[in-house]
C-alpha cells in the first residue's frame, strides 16, 4: 500500500501502515503484531491499550527497531516526517522517501540505529531492571546525552552516526580518562535533566547507583535519560505498572507536563484503560496483535463500537456510580500461534454479540463518517441481530446445558484482570 501524503495531513509525525511483526519460535510462528495502522501526531499523547500478550509492547519495540531474535518485522511501512532526513536519504534510497516523509523500515540498519534516542526514545516497565546496576545513574544518563551530542556533531552522515566508537576507541577510553565516551559536559547536562524531572539534589543523586533510588525516583531518572536526546517521540511501555498507586499519578503527571513544555509526542502503552484515559488524546485498542479500534479518547469513551472496547470500559470500576457492577470479559486472550489462529474475528469466541458474519475477518470501518474513529467490527455497519448469533460461541459451545453453565461460570471466575488505580 503506497501512501500519498496530503499537505493537510502534515500534523502526522508518524504513519504506520500494515506493520507486521512475527516471532519464529520452536513452537511455531507467532503473529505478535498483525498488519496494524495508526498515526502519531506532533505533540499528542497516543495511548495503546490491551491485555498482556495482545502485542502492544511488540508494536512499540517495532517502532524503535528493538525487536530481538527470534522476532522480525516482516512487513509494513513506518513513515516518519523529517524533511532534512528525507533530503539526505533521497539519493541513496529514493523508494524510502515520499515528500517530507521517510519510510524508516527501508533505511539501513545504521540509519535506523541513528534514530534511537534522537527521534524515538523509550522508557520501560521496571526501572530497576532497566538501568545497569553497576554504573551510576548520572553516568548512564550522560551516555544518552553523549550519543546525541556526537550525532549532532556529524549530522550529514546517514550511516550509523554513533557507530564510530570502535573497539579500539573503547580500549583507549578504558586506559585514558581523556578519551572516555562520556565527557564532563554531558555529565553536567545529565544533572540538569535530573533536575528537570523533579529529582531533588540532582548533583548528588547523579553519583548514586540505581539500587540507591526508589522505584518512582528511578522511573523519573529513566524519563530524564529518555529526554537526553531531545526526541520527537517518547514511547512509554507500561511506565507505571511496577509503581505504587500514588507514585503512578506523579509519573503520569510528569509525562503530561513534559509533553506540554517540550511539545514532544508520547506513545503510552498500558493494559489499564484508566491510566490511558488520564492523559491520552487518542487511543488505540489492541487485541490479538491487531489494532481493533482507535479514535479520540471521547470517541472511545462515549461511542465505542467494538464489544471488546466496551468490555474494557466496563471493567474499570466506576467510583461515581458504585452501584453498577464490574463486568469482567469472559475467556482469555487467544493464542498468537499462527497455526492456532482462525480466519474470522479473533474476538468472536469471547464476544457476546458475535454473529455468523464474524466467521470472516472484518475490515476496518469508519464510525459515523468520522475518519479518525475506525473499528474492525461488523457492528459499525449493522446492528446486532440475535437471530444471526454465532452458534459456537461460549454460550452454546457445549450442547449439554449444565456443562455449558459450568463452563461459563469457570470462565467468569477467571476473568482477565484489568488493574485499576
Amino acid at each position, binding site marked *: 500500500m503506497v501512501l500519498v501524503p496530503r499537505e493537510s495531513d502534515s500534523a502526522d509525525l508518524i504513519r504506520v501502515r500494515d506493520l507486521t511483526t512475527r516471532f519464529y519460535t520452536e513452537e511455531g510462528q507467532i503473529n505478535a503484531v498483525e498488519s496494524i495502522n495508526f498515526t502519531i501526531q506532533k505533540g499528542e499523547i497516543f495511548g495503546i491499550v490491551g491485555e498482556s500478550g495482545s502485542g502492544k509492547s511488540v508494536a512499540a519495540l517495532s517502532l524503535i527497531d528493538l525487536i530481538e531474535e527470534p522476532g522480525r518485522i516482516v512487513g509494513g511501512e513506518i513513515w516518519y516526517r523529517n524533511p532534512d532526513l528525507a533530503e539526505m536519504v533521497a539519493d541513496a534510497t529514493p523508494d524510502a522517501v515520499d515528500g517530507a516523509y521517510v519510510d524508516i523500515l527501508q533505511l539501513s540498519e545504521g540509519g535506523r540505529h541513528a534514530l534511537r534516542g534522537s527521534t524515538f526514545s523509550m522508557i520501560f516497565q521496571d526501572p530497576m531492571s532497566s538501568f545497569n546496576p553497576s554504573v551510576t545513574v548520572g553516568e548512564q544518563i550522560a*551516555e544518552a546525552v553523549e550519543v546525541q551530542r556526537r550525532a549532532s556533531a556529524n549530522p550529514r552522515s546517514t550511516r550509523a552516526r554513533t557507530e564510530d*566508537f570502535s573497539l579500539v576507541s573503547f580500549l583507549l577510553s578504558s586506559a585514558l580518562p581523556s578519551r572516555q565516551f562520556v565527557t564532563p559536559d554531558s555529565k553536567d547536562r545529565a544533572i540538569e535533566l535530573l533536575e528537570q524531572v523533579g529529582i531533588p539534589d540532582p548533583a548528588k543523586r547523579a553519583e548514586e547507583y540505581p539500587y540507591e533510588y526508589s522505584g518512582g525516583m528511578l522511573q523519573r531518572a529513566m524519563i530524564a535519560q529518555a529526554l537526553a536526546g531531545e526526541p520527537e517521540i517518547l514511547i512509554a511501555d507500561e511506565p507505571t505498572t511496577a509503581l505504587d498507586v500514588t507514585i503512578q499519578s506523579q509519573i503520569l503527571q510528569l509525562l503530561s507536563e513534559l509533553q506540554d513544555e517540550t511539545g514532544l509526542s508520547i506513545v503510552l502503552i498500558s493494559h489499564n484503560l484508566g491510566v490511558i484515559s488520564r492523559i491520552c488524546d487518542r487511543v488505540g485498542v489492541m487485541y490479538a496483535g491487531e489494532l481493533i479500534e482507535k479514535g479520540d479518547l471521547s470517541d472511545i469513551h462515549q461511542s465505542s463500537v467494538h464489544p471488546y472496547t466496551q468490555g474494557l470500559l466496563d471493567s474499570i470500576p466506576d467510583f461515581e456510580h458504585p452501584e453498577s457492577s464490574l463486568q469482567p470479559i469472559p475467556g482469555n486472550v487467544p493464542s498468537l500461534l499462527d497455526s492456532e489462529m482462525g480466519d474470522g474475528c479473533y474476538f468472536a469466541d469471547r464476544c457476546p454479540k458475535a454473529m455468523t458474519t464474524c466467521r470472516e475477518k472484518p475490515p476496518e470501518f469508519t464510525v459515523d463518517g468520522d475518519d479518525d474513529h475506525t473499528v474492525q467490527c461488523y457492528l459499525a455497519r449493522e446492528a446486532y441481530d440475535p437471530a444471526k448469533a454465532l452458534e459456537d460461541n461460549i454460550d452454546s459451545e457445549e450442547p449439554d446445558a449444565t456443562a455449558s453453565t459450568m463452563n461459563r461460570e469457570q470462565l467468569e471466575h477467571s476473568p482477565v484482570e484489568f488493574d485499576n488505580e
Partner: protein
Amino acid sequence: MGIYKFLLKRVLQGLFVIWGIVTVVFLLRFMTPGDPVSFVAPLDAPPALRAQIAEDLGLNQPLHIQYAEYLIGLVQGDMGYSYISNTDAGSRIFARLPATLELALMATLIAIIISIPLGIISAANRHEPSDYAATSFSLIGISTPNFWLGIMLILVFAETLGVLPSGQQAIGLVGALQMLIFEQNVSGLRAWGAHIILPAITLGTYFTALIMRLTRNGMLEELGKTYIRALRAKGLPETLVRYKHALRNTLIPIITILGLQLGTLIGGAVVTETVFAWPGLGRLVITSVLNRDWPLIQGTLIVIGVGFVVINIVVDSLYAYVNPKVGYE
C-alpha cells in the same frame, strides 16, 4: 558498612582461618601413624640414639608446649629445621616459591588472554560454527587430565619435533631479567620463556577453558537482561553496550570464582611440576610427604593455605569495590 569496616572484618575472619590452618596442620602430625623419629634415625639405631633424636627435635615435650613453641616460631618466621636435610625449612620453602609463582602467573596470564576474547566471540556468534568450536574446545579443556596433557605436549614438541625443552627450569625470571638489564643479554629471558611455555600451557588449559565457559555464559545472560534493551533504546554504540556494560558485569562475578579456584591452580601445579621436573613448591610437597619431613610438610601447607586466604581477601575486597550493589555486606 564502609569499606574499612568491611576490610577489617574480612581480615579478622582471614586471621581466624589462618590460625585454624596452622592448628590443623600442627595436629596432623599427631593424628598420623608412625613415629617421626623412625624416619630420621638409621634403621639399626639404638634406643639411646632414638631418644636423643626425639630430644633434639623437641618431640618429648607435652603437646601444648610443642604447639606454643611452634606458634611462637611461626610468628618469628621460623618453621623449624628439615628433618632430612637439616636446613631451615622456611628458607627451603621460599627458595622454591618463585618457580611455582612464575608458573602459576604465566598459566593465569595465558588463560586470561585466550579465554576472555574467546568467550566473547563465542557469545556474540551463538549457535554459529565459531561458537561450537569454542565451546568444544572448552569442554575438552576442562576434561583433560593435565598430567596427560603435559606428557602429550612433551611427546609432540620435545620428543617428536624437538622444538622446545621438555621442562626443568633453566633460569628463574629474576635471573633472566638481571641478565637482560645488567648484561643486555636476552638469551636468559629466551631460555626462561622456552622452558616455561609447555608447563604454563599444561597448567593453564583448565583455566582457559573454565574462564571461557564462564565468560560466554555470563555474556549471554547479561545480554538477555532488560537494561541492555534500554541501553540500545538510547542509541548507545553496540561496542559500549557489549564491553562497557555487559562484559563488565560478566567479569565481576568471575573474579570471585577464580579466587575460589586458586586451590585447583596450586593442585595443578603439583602435577605439572612433577611432569616437567619443575623445581617448585608442588614437588616439595610430594618429596617431603614421602620423607615424613614434618617441618617441611607443615611449612608448605601453611604457606599455600595462607596464600589462598590472602588472595581471597583481596578478591573479595575488589569484588565489593567494583560491585556497588553488594556493598560491603
